[in-house]
C-alpha cells in the first residue's frame, strides 16, 4: 500500500465513517427510548435528499435555504411517523411495532417510487461547498473536510443537549424507565417527539451530505446506508450515543480499508457490515460501549 493510497483511504474512511455516525445516532436515540428499530429512519435520508434536490432544481432556492427546508420537512415527517404509526402501538407486543415500522418504511419507499420515479437523479453540487483541494499532489474534494467537521459539530451539540440540558435529562429519564419518568412529571410524549425531531434532523443532514458525496439519488438510496448505520449503532452499544459515533467510524473505516487492501473482495463490501454485526451480536451483544443489562422475568 502506497502512502498516497493510505492517505486517500484514510480521508474516505473518515468521511464515510462520519456519515454513518451521524445517521446511527438517530437509530440509537429512538432505540434508547422506544426499544424499536426505526426502519423508517433510513428513508428519511431519501426524503431529505429529494427535498434538497427539488429545492435547488425546481424552486431555484439557494442551497442553504433548500437544505434548511429539507431538514425541517424531514424532522416534521419523523415526528408524524411516530405519532401515526408508533404511538398507537405503544402497549402492543414488540413484533407489532416492528412490523409497523417496516410498513412505514415500505410506504415511504414506494411513495417515493410512485411520486418521483425509480430512475436515479443526479444531485446538484453547489460550487460554494464542493470544490477540489490540492495538497502536495493529493487531490480531494472539499467535502472530505466539510463532512467530518459538520459531523463533529453536530455530535458535540447532541452530546451537550443530552447530557447538560433539561430536555436531555428528561430523555435519559424516559429511556431508563417510562413509568417512573412520567410519575416525575416528565411529559413522555413530548420527550419522544423531541427525540424524533433531533434524530430525524440528524438523518436529514446525513442524507444531504450523503447525496453530496455520492451524487446519485433514487428512492431506495436510504436502505443500505440505513441498515449499515443501524449495525453501527448496535456495534457501539445501542442506546448509547458515543457508542453510535464509535461504531459509525469503525464501520466506515473498516469498509473503506477492506476495499483498499483487498480489491478482489469489493463485491462483498455490503456483506462486510452484516458479518461484523453477527460477530458482535454473538460475542458482545451489548456492543462496545453498551452496558450489560440483565433481562428481568
Amino acid at each position, binding site marked *: 500500500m502506497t502512502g498516497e493510497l493510505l492517505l486517500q483511504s484514510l480521508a474516505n474512511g473518515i468521511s464515510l465513517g462520519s456519515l454513518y455516525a451521524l445517521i446511527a445516532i438517530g437509530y440509537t436515540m429512538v432505540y434508547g427510548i422506544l426499544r424499536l428499530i426505526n426502519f423508517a429512519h433510513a428513508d428519511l435520508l431519501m426524503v431529505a435528499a429529494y427535498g434538497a434536490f427539488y429545492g435547488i432544481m425546481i424552486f431555484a432556492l439557494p442551497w442553504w435555504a433548500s437544505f434548511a427546508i429539507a431538514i425541517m420537512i424531514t424532522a416534521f415527517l419523523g415526528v408524524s411517523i411516530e405519532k401515526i404509526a408508533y404511538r398507537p402501538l405503544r402497549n402492543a407486543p414488540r413484533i407489532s411495532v*416492528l412490523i409497523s415500522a417496516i*410498513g412505514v418504511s415500505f410506504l415511504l419507499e414506494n411513495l417515493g417510487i410512485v411520486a418521483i420515479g425509480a430512475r436515479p437523479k443526479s444531485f446538484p453540487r453547489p460550487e460554494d461547498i464542493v470544490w477540489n483541494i490540492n495538497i502536495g499532489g493529493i487531490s480531494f474534494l472539499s467535502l472530505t473536510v466539510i463532512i467530518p467537521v459538520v459531523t463533529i459539530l453536530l455530535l458535540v451539540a447532541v452530546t451537550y443537549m443530552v447530557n447538560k440540558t433539561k430536555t436531555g435529562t428528561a430523555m435519559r429519564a424516559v429511556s431508563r424507565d417510562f413509568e417512573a419518568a412520567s410519575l416525575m412529571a416528565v411529559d413522555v410524549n413530548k420527550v419522544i417527539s423531541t427525540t424524533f425531531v433531533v434524530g430525524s434532523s440528524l438523518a436529514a443532514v446525513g442524507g444531504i451530505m450523503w447525496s453530496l458525496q455520492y451524487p446519485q439519488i433514487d428512492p431506495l438510496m436510504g436502505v443500505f446506508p440505513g441498515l449499515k448505520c443501524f449495525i453501527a449503532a448496535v456495534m457501539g452499544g445501542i442506546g448509547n450515543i458515543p457508542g453510535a459515533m464509535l461504531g459509525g467510524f469503525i464501520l466506515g473505516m473498516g469498509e473503506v480499508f477492506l476495499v483498499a487492501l483487498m480489491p478482489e473482495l469489493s*463485491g462483498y463490501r455490503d456483506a462486510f457490515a452484516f458479518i461484523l454485526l453477527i460477530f458482535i451480536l454473538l460475542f458482545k451483544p451489548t456492543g462496545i460501549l453498551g452496558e450489560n443489562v440483565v433481562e428481568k422475568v
Partner: protein
Amino acid sequence: MDNRQRLKTLLTIGLIIVCCVSLFFAESYLDNFKARVLNLAAIFVILGASMNLVLGFTGMFSLGHAGFMCVGAYVSAILTMSPESKEMIYFMEPIVPALANIHWPVLPAIFMAGLVASFFGFLIGFPALRLRDDYLAIATLGFGEIIRIIVTNTITITNGSLGLKNIPSIKSMYLYWGVAIITILVLKQLINSSWGYAFKAIRDNEIAAEAMGIDVFRHKLLSFTVGAFFAGVAGALMGHLITSIDPTMFRFLFTFQILLIIVLGGLGSLTGSVIAGLVITIMMEVLRFVEQPMNLFGLVIPGIPGMRMVIFSLLLLMVILFYRQGLMGTREFNWDWILNKLGVKPDKGKGVGANG
C-alpha cells in the same frame, strides 16, 4: 366424540376430492394467465405458511425468508437445467465442471432445493437464534442479504448478477398446488404435535417454556430449519414458474410481501395464511389496473407504476394499526370450528382452504 372424529375424517377426504376435481377443472379450462396467477398463489401460500411457522407460531421475527428462497431457486435451477443451456448461459465464466453435466428431473431437484435451504437455515439459525426480537430480525435480514451477495459474486456457480435463464418451465397446476397442499398438511401435523405445542409455548413466554423443561434452542432451530426448507421449495417452484431468476429478485422487499400475507391472515393461523396468500396474490393481479392509464368519464388518468405496492404498504399499516389480529387471529378455519358453528350439521362449509 367418536362419531365426530369419523365425520371429520370423511369431510377431509371429501375436501381433498373436491380440491382434486377443482384442480382438474382449473387445469383443463383456465387460460394460461389465470393458471399462472393461481400457481403463483400456491407459491405464496407455501411461503406464508412457512414464515408463519417461524414468526406466528414460534414467535421468532425472522426476515431472512427471501434468502432461503434464493438458495432454493438456484439449487433447483442448476440441477434441472440441461448441460447445453448451461453452456449457453454461463458465457461470462464457464460453470464449475462438477455442476456442468448434472441434469435432474424436477421433483427430486425441488426436494434437494428444500434440503439445501434447510441446511443453510440450520447454519444460520445456529448462531442467530440466540438473539431475540429486533436483534434477530436485523441479523436474519443481514444473513438474507449476505446470501444474496454471495450468490451475486460466485459467478462460476450462479452466473452472478446476470442470473439464470431457460430454467425448465412447468405449467402444471398439480405440481404447484400439490406441493402447497403437502406443505399445509405437514405444517398442520407439526403444529398439532408436541413440537408444535412447544413452539407456541416458546412464543407466548420463552422463560416459562424453558422452566417447563422445553429445550428452547432446539425447538427454535427446528422451527427455523423447517421454515427454511419450505422457503427453499417455494423458491424452486418460483424458478420453474417464471423460468428466469436473478439475485435482485430475492431482495428484502420480497420478504415484505410474505410479511403482509401473514399479518393479514393472522400471526399464528395456518388457514389465515392460506386465505391471505390467495387473496394477496389475486389482488396483486387485479390491482394491475391502477398502474394502467385510466379513463374516468372522459378524464384520463395516466398509469402510475408502483402504485400497487403503495396500496399494499398502506394495507399492512392499516391492519397492524387497527386490526392487529388479522383475518383469523390465532384461530383456525377447520372442521371443529365449522361444526361448532353449525351445531353438528355439516351440510355446508366445504370451502377451499378449509383443510387446516
